[in-house]
């Protein structure tokens, strides 16, 4: 990763310019041209490092979401994980080292839609689903500092 990529990824996670030509503003700050900034961002996105540029919405303000967990027998994990990932309401879906080995986040317009997704996953897999909605946020998503080698 070169210095321009590092600054693009590190410096604009929280306060991306809210002005008519944000990429021109960033170009100005980094000593580049606007089209170079756009090309670099498109490249980072194509490589998967950049997910998107946008809003991270505070939980429980618009829409509804929950964290869910399942204890899936090892031999069924891939199939169940694929079924879970196929739900449009599921955004993150991870295997973790635990008897509860499948963890995913469900987000939708309202609580009814979230519950319907959990029920549908439970019904299709025949496995119980733990519903672990957020009750209190002590620290929310503020982005990542780039510090790994």
């Amino acid at each position, binding site marked *: 990763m070169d210095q321009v990529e590092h600054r693009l990824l590190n410096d604009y*996670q929280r306060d991306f310019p809210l002005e008519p030509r*944000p990429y021109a503003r960033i170009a100005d700050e980094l000593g580049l041209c606007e089209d170079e900034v756009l090309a670099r961002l498109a490249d980072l996105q194509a490589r998967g490092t950049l997910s*998107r540029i*946008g809003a991270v919405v505070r939980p429980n303000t618009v829409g509804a979401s929950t964290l869910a967990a399942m204890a899936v027998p090892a031999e069924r994990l891939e199939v169940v994980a694929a079924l879970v990932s196929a739900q449009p309401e599921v*955004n993150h879906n991870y295997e973790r080292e635990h008897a509860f080995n499948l963890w995913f986040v469900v987000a939708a317009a309202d609580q009814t839609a979230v519950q319907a997704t959990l029920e549908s996953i439970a019904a299709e897999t025949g496995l119980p689903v*733990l519903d672990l909605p957020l009750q209190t946020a*002590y620290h929310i998503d503020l982005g990542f500092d780039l510090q790994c080698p």
Partner: protein
Amino acid sequence: MPVDATDRRLLAAIEDGLPLVPQPYAAVARRLGLDEADVLARLRRLRAGGIISRFGLVVRHHELGYRANAMAVWNVPDAQVDDMGRRLAAYDFVTLCYRRPRRLPNWPFNLFCMVHGCDRDTVCEQIARLNAEQTLASLPHEVLFSRRRFKQRGARYFMKTDVPARGVA
């Protein structure tokens, strides 16, 4: 703060990301039948009001070298959990810290922290530090490292039928 129907349409329109064009807010405004100044004013208001907790690049931590991703969980007495949650959130290596309900008998844990680190040893040391400094070691606790990532993208709270398709010039 109030969030009106137009705010919701706007948040829905940018859920997949701001377009990579010189005037992205104008492009979003056109899709919604708004003007650029209105889109910018709404985003600034949602940001200032805390509905948008951050606005900017959303990166994939794994691709940035954060290969060790642990969810540490504790069973903290209800009377102490808020205080403990605030203490843990103050550590710079704790990226998320939430209270969630217990689901007995199989899930007795109510305090969740995410620790993302460059390698597993470092993350284990950081969690050990939380346990030692905050005298959490005597409480039931577990650490769940992530193994495989099956899916990762932004949340989609909205029905896409509310928003015209993008990609139309």
